[in-house]
């Protein structure tokens, strides 16, 4: 029994950020797995925790927290364990800058591609009436639109091209930043790396023509270094699907 409960899906994207931060801090928590593809996040039990119906959410005693990046900052400050926010104020700024850049620019582009090739097809075969009812239960209007598009395969070619453009550019920016320093935002492993790894761990598989040992050696070095950490192994062991198992590609040796 602990006084921390994390409501999460796979160790991936927004769910994986607080999961990995908790493992790095050595904070024991009760894991409450929600199946995103089964719309668990829009069911009344969970809406009582996070009325917006998005994953993740965390409770600490009576406190309820949402917003994965803000949760990570809380985890770092509220618990003992290694410090994950750098000490230097400029490095702190850079940590937050990169997390925002990933959260609000790069990750949504990865999401659009992921939802179009994976999430949509995974739920499409369900009974149409059941799907309509499931979409009607989604609290945020923006998310109802996203789910409809994913299910109907209705992302426009322009949207997809724009997302692919951003993914290609974003990989270049990450490579550049990791060429300048060992970790994304400072000389020590920290929150920006935890955030970034959740976005990037499967890139060599999903974007092999953009992310590989030849083109992006710094990204590959960084991903392998994070994969080697015991906290990362423990965190990804909570995955239940092939999505999380993609991490094993990082066992490969540099080419």
């Amino acid at each position: 029994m602990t006084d921390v409960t994390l409501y999460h899906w796979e160790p991936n994207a927004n769910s994986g950020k607080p999961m990995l931060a908790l493992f790095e801090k050595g904070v024991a928590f009760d894991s409450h797995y929600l199946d995103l593809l089964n719309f668990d996040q829009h069911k009344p039990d969970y809406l009582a925790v996070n009325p917006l119906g998005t994953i993740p959410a965390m409770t600490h005693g009576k406190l309820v927290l949402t917003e994965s990046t803000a949760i990570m900052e809380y985890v770092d400050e509220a618990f003992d364990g290694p410090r994950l926010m750098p000490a230097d104020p400029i490095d702190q700024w850079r940590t937050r800058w990169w997390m925002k850049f990933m959260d609000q620019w790069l990750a949504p582009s990865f999401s659009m591609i992921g939802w179009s090739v994976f999430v949509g097809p995974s739920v499409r075969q369900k009974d149409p009436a059941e799907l309509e009812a499931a979409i009607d239960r989604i609290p945020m209007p923006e998310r109802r639109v996203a789910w409809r598009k994913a299910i109907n395969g209705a992302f426009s070619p322009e949207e997809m091209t724009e997302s692919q453009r951003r993914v290609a550019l974003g990989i270049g920016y990450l490579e550049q930043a990791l060429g300048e320093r060992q970790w994304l935002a400072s000389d020590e492993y920290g929150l920006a790396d935890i955030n970034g790894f959740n976005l990037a761990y499967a890139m060599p598989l999903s974007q092999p023509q953009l992310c590989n040992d030849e083109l992006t050696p710094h990204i590959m070095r960084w991903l392998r270094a994070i994969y080697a950490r015991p906290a990362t192994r423990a965190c990804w062991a909570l995955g239940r699907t092939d999505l999380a198992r993609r991490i094993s590609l990082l066992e490969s040796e540099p080419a």
Partner: protein
Amino acid sequence: MTGILYHGQPNGPSFTVLAAAFEKGVDLDLRAIDLVAGERHSTALPHPIEVDQSIEGEGPVLVVDGVAMTDSVFLACYLDEVGSGPAIRPADPYARWQMMAWCRYVIERVAPAAAALGNAATPPPAVPAGIASADLDARWAQAVEAKVDEAQLADSRSKIFQAVEKIEAQLADGRDWLMGDFSIADLETHAWLAGMRAIVPDAFAAAPLTDAWEARLRARPAVAQALGLATVPEPEAIWAIGPEINRWG
């Protein structure tokens, strides 16, 4: 500490950073630039990724020790760390989470809506040369050509209504400031909403707590000092290009 702050009129993100610097007593070399004329893209400023790809759009740039920093909330956090004035972030981790989550809401939902409405009300004259980010360039072109998507503007107005409702609810227990103690959340929220009174007046029609909060905020010496840097009578009517409206949801 020495730093150079390139800033626009005290509205939007420039307001937040100027007021935060004065609250914290951080002595900066203030350099006013015309954000609406695109001066942020001139070669006089440094152009690392963090300047050219800032999610905020045309916000201020703070240069310290050769590092050019952007994004107003995080600049304010930086100023809180290095300045000697009273804290502008709560010390308790949960209260701090509340402040960061509130600011994220403002950044992600309110700011794009306000900027879109501001640009539609007063379209900038021309797209400046030298914009590195293609999506920022596209937002400029859309604003200059006044290509107004009515559905998007209607949604933006509803975001302003929601923001005012959220402030009213937050202040309902009689507190003076959004997080209890004065914080960056007050600055960032005011930064984007100040100009909305003229553009979406109905949102403020029955918001007495918000009115009183704004009056308290404007009475703070640091806020008055920031607004005093305006070189136009109504800085809140000056809108450079802001963050994009969330394309995912």
